[in-house]
């Protein structure tokens, strides 16, 4: 009896609706707009759970082959790399995606694809710093910056990825020496978000901060008068631009089809939509991120910051070194 009842309930719930189910870490207004547009264009309903990526990935892992999720959308390549390692994603083939997304911004086997780019740059207080005195991430280790660097704590996954990129380029030993030296140059014990670093920078607490570019965009376009004031007092500097230097560290927000996706075709259509010109324009204009699609130019605001040379390392190498980076942060006391 109970069995029959349950079967009926299940049948009612699992009616084959035309939908796609997403676990996402991203909590930006741009995404809500895009979900809506996708439904309008295709008639495919977008169902969303938005939560911390590390935890939602654990849910995905536990749910195993019964997961309702078709897509995992997250920020930071380290997590995508880990999701692939944990066998949570499946490879897909898409001519379109392979054509428009540069090689280094997607997984070789098609497990994940970048959808937006963000650069981790230096911002400086325009009153106290001549941008010509800035050069590379490595230069921040110099003693002349004592007491004048601001950045987030080591639990920031963006800092983890920055250090992981240094490990990938220069090895653990040099990366550790760098982290240790930068740590001893901190203006204060790391606290707050990237935005808070810029607020403290504008307050004259330090000379340089390490932040992601889209946070600068958020401050510039903020409804809060004080954040607008902060934005006016800081300048953006893209480090590592010299000829024999590797370029500014970039990271991605990326997406992959889950291993046990029930709506695989819809999921692929969704990824292709996110990388289409239309969606890429929304990402760059609403959320101030750089497009991954080669054929889409950054928004006017982003262009006003200037073009720059990107670190073209294959991003999975950053994911590989993530845990090592966390260990180094612990060892040098970059809390």
């Amino acid at each position: 009896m109970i069995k029959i009842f349950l079967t009926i309930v299940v049948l009612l719930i699992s009616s084959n609706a035309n939908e796609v189910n997403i676990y996402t870490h991203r909590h930006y207004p741009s995404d809500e707009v895009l979900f809506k547009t996708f439904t309008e264009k295709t008639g495919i309903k977008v169902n969303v759970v938005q939560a911390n990526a590390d935890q939602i990935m654990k849910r995905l892992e536990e749910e195993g082959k019964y997961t309702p999720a078709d897509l995992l959308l997250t920020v930071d390549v380290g997590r995508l790399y880990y999701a692939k390692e944990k066998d949570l994603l499946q490879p897909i083939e898409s001519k379109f995606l392979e054509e428009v997304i540069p090689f280094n911004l997607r997984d070789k086997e098609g497990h994940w694809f970048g959808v937006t780019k963000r650069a981790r740059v230096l911002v400086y207080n325009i009153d106290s710093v001549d941008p010509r005195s800035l050069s590379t991430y490595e230069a921040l280790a110099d003693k002349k910056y004592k007491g004048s660097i601001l950045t987030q704590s080591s639990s920031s996954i963006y800092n983890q990825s920055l250090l992981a990129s240094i490990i990938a380029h220069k090895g653990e030993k040099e990366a550790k020496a760098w982290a240790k030296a930068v740590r001893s140059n901190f203006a204060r014990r790391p606290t707050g978000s990237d935005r808070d670093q810029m607020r403290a920078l504008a307050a004259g607490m330090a000379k340089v901060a390490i932040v992601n570019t889209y946070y600068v965009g958020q401050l510039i376009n903020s409804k809060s008068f004080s954040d607008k004031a902060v934005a006016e007092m800081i300048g953006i500097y893209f480090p590592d631009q010299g000829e024999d230097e590797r370029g500014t560290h970039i990271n991605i927000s990326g997406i992959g089809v889950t291993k046990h996706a029930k709506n695989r075709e819809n999921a692929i259509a969704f990824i292709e939509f996110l990388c289409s010109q239309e969606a890429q324009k929304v990402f760059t204009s609403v959320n101030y991120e750089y497009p991954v699609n080669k054929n889409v130019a950054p928004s006017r605001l982003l262009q006003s910051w200037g073009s720059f040379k990107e670190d073209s390392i294959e991003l999975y190498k950053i994911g590989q070194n993530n845990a090592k980076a966390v260990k180094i942060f612990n060892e040098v006391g970059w809390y």
Partner: protein
Amino acid sequence: MINRWSSFSYILTFIIILPIVLVINHALGSETQTLIHLKETVMSEYVTDTLILVLSVAFVTLILGVGTAYLTTFYQFRFAGFFVFTLALPFAIPTYIMGYVYADIFGYFNHFHLFLRSIGIEEYFNVLNIYSVIIIMSLVLYPYVYLLVRASFEKSKSALLNPALSLGSSRKKIFFKIILPLSRPAIVGSLALVMMETISEYGITEYYNIKTFTPAIFNTWFGLHDSKSATYIAVMAMVMVLIVLIIEKYNRGKADYKTEDTKAKVKKQHLKGYRLYLTYTLLSMPIVFGFIIPLIWMGVYSYEYAANILDEKFLGTLTNSFVSSSLTAFIIIVLAFFVGYTSRIFPTVMNRYLSKIISLGFTMPGAVIAIGVVMLIINIDKWLIENYITKTLFLGGTFFTLLFAYIVRFFAIGVHTVDSSLERISIDLNRASRSLGHSYFKTMIKVELPLMKNALLFGFALVFISTVKELPMTLVLRPFNYETLATKAYTLANAQMLHETSLYALGIIVISLIPLSVILLKRHV
């Protein structure tokens, strides 16, 4: 002796702690490599920050909570009723929102510093530090102590105070010799809740970068990808709290805290002159900083945008919060009452410590409990599927999962409120009823329930508000497209949309007011 009552309690306890057991089981044989690494590097920092934060918050909430409860119970002054009500309100503001509010107000280009510069002070005060976290968490959490201790004061005041006063004891002496010792169960119970919630708090410790055990767990689990060592740390925190609770319970031993309620009026002292103004000042401080300032902040920000957001979606979110919170609170209070009553009528050693075991979930960060809940629910689902009862996930990713997680996490609040109140009711009443031939169940309904009504309502309100504010479990366990006021406020705050954030935060306060007003106004104290 195993009987029906006890077995029900055992089964319930088992179900509630099962997710935690699953997580711990997962940690067995933890990777010593990682633990050695942590011990050599950051562990001392984690332990120090945890101890400083937990002990300081416990101390401040003790002073604030007992102080405000004492002043509003034993003294009479104008607007006393107003204070009784508003003193509970800071509890309705989520800690992480309060953290944002003060970080914003003290921003270099914001109100506080603009004011300083206008009077010629150029100094920059950075508030993103552990002292701010201590103050903010104390402001949010002292109402636990205030509400539970006040309920206990109310019970003892007339029976004890009048004879003592007529015997000529000074008020100071009465407070320290009679009132305070008698309220020990309430003080300890509420402080336990405060300490557990402080340990498991994530949002504000992450934002202000305070290295307590909770960030340590996250750092180890998701940064070093070592879930075993992470759980090991979680268990360590749990054991610490458990030891404190057991020592206290043991120390209390057979001490008797029972008093009979009498209807005699207590001689409340009238406050006059400077003491009246001092009282006003003292009582206003936590209200102003813990409620009014954040409320003004939200009001200012949400004022212009209210009209844009107050639509069906907002109402839907409000309904979600209200339904999940009232269901959670109702289930927890009923079950906690059963468990408490069982250990009262069958006071075996096992039954007496059951309430301590069952409340363990409260020391664990919500996100870790969420993982335990997922493990449990998915295993049940897999069993159902393998036995051809269902085809897809039947419980996982549904509202039921979320509800169960709330119950696991907040059961501690129910248990502690029930316990601290039951300990004040003489067992003789129960025996008298039994000797008249009433069953245990009937006695429970006819004797204990009416006496406990207020305490149960308090418990209901505390669980309700905690659930409304709950964030980490809701985020990760929720069904598709399910939003609560807390998830919305958090998401919007993260996107720096302060106007929209504040409207949802206001929503949290407004629905938290419902159970609070029912209790506090009805009792017209």
